[in-house]
């Protein structure tokens, strides 16, 4: 494919998605306006129609990514076999993590590379930003353990350079972005590429090698992102997310890939970067003013991707690459904590979206991120405006003209509102059904236990996410309001482990959501009882929020939500578990504080 045809293909994909999304949004708004204005046009009808446009557009845009992904789906290319001639640093940033578990990941990935005979092309650097001195000392102990486990003394005795490095910063200036930047400013000149990981990342050696070969083959490629699969979940919530990420995300990511052109995404980890490209174009400044809108850029990965594209480098996600793994939150509270940080990071991009010289698609990606967090506000406003419109609707006037002989019955436009509601629900379900049909036709369902199990997983995930969605909506709305009111979310703890919650913990996190649920029911009952049936699917989950938060944190086991990684454990994950087991019997002690503070899941 030539560059010109590739560019026109990208533009056509973007235009198709935008046109369909805008068209569906406008159609839904027009229908809703007819329904709302059936009893005479009021200002609130226009507001409701505008809100329907924005929310429907946003849902349609999401659905179009799946459609684009299915349209543009291609057979994965064969792995490259060109010799590796470059040097790559594999960077593992850690921040108050359990060193045994994290360093065992390093050992597992090194074993994977060793099986391919490629270790001489790769060094590992553990970049610690751990602020707890006891934990820092434990990291040093475990690094010695890793050093011995990887036989670095024997390597040095043979006259070879060691391949494992450890550095701890006393102050975590710039957080993860600052940590990585510090590495390049200290040691970047020794390497052609750097593989950026998170503390919970695992990658197969052949995936790492394929990334390097692809980057060697394309000198203009500045960053190559993999699509990490979520693994290791054990709770109902965690396994539902793990299933959804494994089953749907490859199609959605393919859709993104079809539209991204040279301005693809960077998700902060499990991605290979070209050192020269990154160092030339990705040193982030602090934004003026205090947090949450000023200070260090929280979601730095999106900004780095945009800056690479601005400098003329290609940034790309290759969803066909397997063997790339991460872990996800196990319960709704941990999810909400992570989402709070992402919310602040994405809203901070309001300050970056007008940066000079950015590609239009990079600006659109920022806009998408901002809208994804503001969208819940639109849904809340839509709910409130409907309650207001119903409560203030004028009495039906059957004799609008003086001396009118026959009554005039207002035309019933309810079917149009029902049509919009059905359409909105369809936009939520349609992409998932499409992905299921596609997976059945291509045989991908076999990786998820077959068509019946995949269908069961899809339906159950749909029900769970429908119940969870209003609760998430409340958390997101609170997060957005907190950021707009100037409250910095800081760097909250991300808990590792099975994530099981007690009812008391669930109640402590969800009582205020319950109160909102009760308030919505009371207000609806008082002012717009006709809307009660429409409001119940939202208000009932709110009222029982603590129960939902607790119940979804309970353990879950296959076969439902089974994923390919559960059916056939990838070698690097099996190695990691084995090494953790071995080290737990022979390694240094781990301080009790290890699970208290946080890990940086993203960037």
């Amino acid at each position, binding site marked *: 494919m030539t560059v010109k045809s590739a560019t026109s293909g990208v533009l056509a994909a973007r235009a198709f998605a935008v046109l369909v999304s805008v068209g569906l949004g406008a159609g839904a708004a027009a229908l809703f306006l007819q329904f709302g204005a059936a009893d005479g046009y009021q200002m609130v009808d226009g507001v409701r129609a505008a809100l329907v446009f924005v929310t429907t557009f946003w849902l349609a845009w999401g659905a179009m990514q799946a459609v684009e992904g299915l349209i543009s789906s291609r057979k994965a290319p064969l792995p490259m076999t060109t010799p590796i001639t470059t040097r790559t640093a594999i960077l593992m940033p850690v921040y108050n993590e359990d060193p045994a578990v994290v360093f065992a990941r390093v050992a597992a990935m090194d074993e994977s590379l060793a099986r391919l005979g490629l270790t001489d092309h790769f060094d590992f*650097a553990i970049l610690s930003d751990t602020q707890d001195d006891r934990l820092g000392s434990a990291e*040093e*102990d475990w*690094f*010695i353990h890793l*050093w011995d486990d990887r036989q*670095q003394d024997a390597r040095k005795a043979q006259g070879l350079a*060691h391949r*494992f*490095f*450890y*550095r701890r910063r006393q102050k975590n200036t710039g957080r993860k972005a600052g940590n990585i*930047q510090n*590495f*390049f*400013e*200290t*040691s*970047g*000149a*020794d390497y052609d590429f750097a593989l950026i990981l998170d503390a919970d990342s695992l990658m197969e050696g052949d995936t790492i090698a394929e990334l390097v070969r692809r980057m060697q083959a394309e000198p203009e490629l500045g960053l190559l992102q993999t699509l990490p699969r979520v693994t290791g979940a054990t709770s109902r919530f965690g396994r539902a997310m793990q299933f959804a990420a494994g089953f749907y995300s490859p199609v959605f990511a393919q859709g993104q890939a079809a539209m991204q052109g040279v301005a693809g995404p960077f998700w902060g980890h499990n991605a290979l970067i070209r*050192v020269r490209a990154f*160092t*030339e*174009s*990705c*040193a*982030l*400044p602090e*934004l*003026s*003013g*205090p947090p949450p*809108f*000023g200070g260090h850029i929280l979601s730095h990965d999106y*900004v780095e991707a945009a*800056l690479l594209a601005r400098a003329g480098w290609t940034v790309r996600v290759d969803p066909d690459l397997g063997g790339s793994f991460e872990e996800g939150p196990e319960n709704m509270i941990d999810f909400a904590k992570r989402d709070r940080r992402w919310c602040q990071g994405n809203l901070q991009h*309001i*300050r*970056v*979206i*007008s*940066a*000079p010289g950015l590609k239009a698609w990079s600006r659109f990606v920022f806009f998408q991120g901002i809208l994804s967090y503001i969208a819940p506000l639109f849904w809340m406003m839509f709910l409130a405006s409907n309650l207001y419109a119903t409560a203030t609707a004028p009495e039906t006037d059957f004799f609008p003209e003086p001396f009118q002989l026959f009554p005039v019955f207002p035309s019933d436009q309810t079917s149009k509102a029902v049509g919009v509601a059905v359409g909105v629900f369809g936009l939520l379900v349609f992409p998932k059904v499409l992905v299921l049909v596609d997976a059945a036709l291509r045989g991908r369902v076999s990786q998820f236990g077959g068509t019946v199990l995949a269908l069961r997983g899809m339906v159950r995930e749909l029900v769970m996410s429908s119940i969870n969605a209003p609760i998430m909506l409340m958390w997101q709305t609170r997060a957005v309001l907190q*950021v*707009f*009111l*100037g409250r910095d979310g800081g760097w909250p703890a991300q808990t590792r482990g099975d994530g099981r919650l007690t009812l008391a913990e669930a109640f402590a996190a969800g009582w205020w959501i319950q109160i909102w649920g009760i308030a919505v029911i009371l207000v609806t009952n008082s002012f717009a009882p006709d809307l009660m049936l429409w409001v119940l699917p939202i208000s009932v989950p709110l009222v029982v929020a603590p129960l939902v938060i607790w119940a979804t944190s309970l353990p879950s086991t296959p076969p439902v939500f089974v994923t390919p990684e559960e059916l056939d454990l990838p070698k690097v994950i099996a190695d990691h578990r084995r090494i953790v087991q071995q080290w737990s019997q022979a390694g240094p002690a781990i301080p009790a504080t290890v699970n208290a503070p946080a890990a940086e899941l993203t960037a």
Partner: protein
Amino acid sequence: MDARMTLQDMARNGSDRARSDNRRAAILSMAGLPDAPLVMPRQVIQVSQPSIIYATQNAARRLYSLMTEGFGPAARGR
């Protein structure tokens, strides 16, 4: 006899610990990041001076830039 053995053990343990500490320090020193610096020039992502915006941008873009630039301070009530 027992007391002498205990003293020997203590001496041996102390010597082992010292050796282990020395080795630990040597490895950690050796495993520090290699000295191969690269310069990372600070990127401009925020046009903070309105005069620069006015000089280089057309009217629509100027308005857009000012709105997006001003959004953060306005939201903080400054």
